[in-house]
């Protein structure tokens, strides 16, 4: 098992159903300054005409997760399928992981006094096969799945579409794959010109290598 997610981000209408589903499913603290998943929005004008881009996001469950490496108590760890998790009993709230995470995916849950983050809804994978955010999405932005399963919808998507990941240059080997819109104008509008575009065939060896190196730490 090597869990990951592809995002058809061009479908996102910023309705935030995913955020509410996540909070209800996982009992995420209300009123915290951050949350487990979010919809990022960039807006502005081009020659006076407004535009906006929407990027749904959450923890990347990186194969080279800096938050796991930095944790002094091993509270941050890899769960089954490489899901990056926090063991609340071991967390001393040093917030090193929050500093280390380049995606700002962690926050303090004041009610449990612990670092909280996305778990890919690992408690419901066995029963439903998917996360709360994917299940509820009106326009079906997300596809959660197992990178090891060649027949999964996830791998099928990655094989047929081009995609990019966030902050690739940091070397975290992140597992949120943003699917490149086929419409060139929109692809241009929603990407930085320096963003690298990948195919699964080309990037798979890199991901396999990282997985093989770190998966010894994964809980089974």
């Amino acid at each position: 098992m090597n869990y990951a997610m592809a995002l058809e981000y061009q479908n996102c209408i910023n309705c935030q159903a995913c955020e509410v589903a996540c909070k209800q499913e996982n009992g995420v603290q209300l009123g915290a300054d951050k949350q487990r998943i979010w919809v990022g929005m960039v807006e502005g004008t081009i020659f006076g005409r407004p535009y906006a881009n929407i990027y749904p996001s959450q923890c990347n469950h990186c194969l080279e997760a800096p938050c796991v490496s930095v944790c002094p108590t091993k509270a941050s760890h890899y769960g089954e399928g490489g899901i990056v998790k926090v063991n609340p009993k071991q967390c001393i709230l040093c917030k090193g992981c929050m500093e280390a995470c380049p995606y700002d995916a962690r926050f303090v849950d004041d009610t449990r006094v612990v670092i909280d983050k996305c778990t890919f809804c690992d408690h419901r994978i066995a029963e439903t096969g998917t996360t709360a955010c994917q299940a509820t999405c009106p326009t079906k932005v997300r596809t959660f799945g197992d990178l090891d399963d060649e027949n999964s919808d996830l791998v099928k998507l990655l094989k047929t579409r081009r995609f990019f990941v966030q902050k690739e240059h940091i070397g975290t080997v992140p597992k949120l794959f943003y699917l490149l819109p086929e419409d060139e104008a929109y692809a241009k509008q929603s990407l930085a010109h320096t963003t690298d575009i990948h195919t699964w065939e080309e990037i798979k060896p890199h991901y396999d290598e990282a997985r093989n190196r770190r998966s010894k730490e994964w809980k089974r």
Partner: protein
Amino acid sequence: MQIEISRRRFLKGSVALMILGGTALSGADILAEAMSKATAAPVAAKGRRKVATICEMCVNKCAAIAHVENNIVKKLDPNPLFPKSRNMLCARGQAGISALYDPDRLKYPLIRAGERGDGKYRRATWEEAYKHIADKLTKILDEEGDNRSTIGYCAGEGLAEHTFKSFMSDKFGSSNFLNHSSICLQSTVTGYTLTIGGYGIADLENARYVIMAGANRAEAILTPDTMDLFKRTRGRGAKLVVVDPRYTNTAMHADTYLQIKPGTDLAFVLALTYATLLGQLYNKEYVENNFQDFEKYKKHILDSGYTPEWAEKITGIPAGTICKVAHDFMAAAPQAIYYQGRRTTWSKNDFQLRRAMALFTALGGGVDVKGGIVFGHKLPLGDHAITAPIYANAKGRIDKDAAAVVGSTGSWVAWRNMVAEGKTPYPVRGMFVYKQNPMLSVPDTARTAEMLRKMDLVVVIDTMPSDTAMFADVILPECTYLEREDPVTSFAGTEPAIALRMKAIEPMYETKPVIEIMRGLGEALSKPLWEISKKHDEDLQSELEDRPEEEVFSEGGYDLADAYQESQEEINHHMVVAKHGEAAWRILREKGVFYPQMNEYFKKLSDNSYQYYPRNKKYYGVLKKEGEMVRDDSLDRDCETCETCVNPADIAPTSRTYSTPSKKIECYLGAMEKKGVDPMPAWHDEDYVKVPKGKYKFITGRHAHFTQNATVNNIMLLELMKENYVWINDREARTLGIAFGDMVEITSPVGKVHIKAYPTPKIVSEAVFYIHGFGSKSSLQTFAHRNGASDNEIIEGSIEPVLGCAIMHDTLVSVRKV
């Protein structure tokens, strides 16, 4: 629901008969075997249950599965089986649990202890509350000579709306009903219906070109439109043109965004029509076969000079763009739709705007064809009979002359104004309010308060202590949708289905479902009101001379509770079994959804997609076509080629029988002309509200995070948006010295609000906007109380002349920093 008129049926026919059409479909028995694994089956783990239900956080009615643990609803998930909601729950649907466990919910019957509006109530028992209502009603009806229409009533949209309505109209006997229509979508529904024979369903799963003007499907979510459209934009099948004074989340997905001045949409559509007629771009064969009075319409449009250049001056949209849109639309036709929209009546000409939109779509042939506006099919359900007494002294509705055509759902604004101003033909002294909140939903709040203050009896049935509830003499607490079973409902569409809301948990506190409230109210009211009728109703008196009293009372339907004796579950059982058999009922109760071939058709295609009906079994073209003797549904559906291999463009020109008076597309409404309404859409400069310097046109709208004003106390949704902000064009804001977050005062002729500012280039310079629903003044709603501003506090209470719908976007306001 079927209503039997008890007696004197030839004398008076004020009771509307709701006819449930269609034939019984067999096939339920095929479904007896187990459904595929992908479907939601109840799990009988210890203390854990899964209950199929239907969401009521907005009007869409998405199918959901409630996960219940030890009688606590822990999570709501989408039910993948329902074709209309396509396996999704939006933010509001997910937040349903917070509505169920809202600490401010109405928990017990309340009787007013202070002045209207001050929020002082005392807890009462149900018996006490019913008695209080019965005593007041008896006195009022005695004084009004048993004129039942002295009590008005209104209802918000919902599965149980009809239960309340049938009690007030068929059993109690008042004609003064109001619902959301005249403050919502009546102008567009009527405009499309009188033109193409129905409001229809935009087939956004197959349309190739969509003009979405004013409608905002990314934020005002509508199923299945929202889900279908945004998977097909940006080069994936559907070209999307968004026309709006605001750059909305829908505009973000558009291929072309056209910023239009508010109130000028009709000029835009007329110019599109002009370009289409002049360039002969329309589907000539279709028009020849299906249009009535086409030449008249063509002459009218061309002679009136509705050129793109003319429209550019009015709308602000360049003439060249208008021509291009007309060309592209007609090139994609018949799979091209000028989207009907929902919450409408923007300005005085709205009815004509909707007519012009319908005619423009029809010019391309995109009606009753795949990828166009389709009518779909509705599965039949059995009847539930009600015996309705006839009250000789019950008068007709007060607002029937307020506009050219006032329907049975009334004109909210005209009705309210008449009562507030004391200009009614007879006294209107009471109001029963179910699940509606006119204090926030009807334009000109001050006037609504004035109306409610004049009433001798206001009864509110709701789940939340709304602003309107604060004006009630008696508040009756309804349970939320997760605590009740509601009338089983058949949903029309290209993929029709029946869905059922079942209760996830028992009603909390002392709340009840509306059917039980009607039963209790009926039991308390029947005898006292019977005495009033006996005293004042001469027809009844003469009838009692011939027949024993008990017989007339029971057979005549004067026992107001008699229609509500069965449980909702029993009634639903009859309605389903009558048409689909016991096997269907078992499936429906287990799965929450039923359609005759579900077991065969329903398939999981991928993690994110399901098949409900095979492509060739969907109901696209349903009207009787030329050469068809009698429409044989089963034959047609079995034809493998009927909708798959055939290009919609080849089917489009066929002559059809439309549900309009002439059985054709109606260009010219002669009957309306007699009522002083333009028979064909026409632009009148004098109807257009110009924006003088220093003023702004106020426009309003909906949002994906809140439903009207019903969810503003929901903590889960307030997490997404804490309050509403007024959108003002950033350049205008700069000249007024307004920065983001500044408190501004917005003043209109009818009111004044304070709200924080959001300067943005996303809105046209002559308009300001904020989202509807905020600004509650009910002190019993902790989180909503005085949070943000209410739009209807500043929108003027005026109506358009055809249907009496409230004009929402013609109010001029001034803005200043405070």
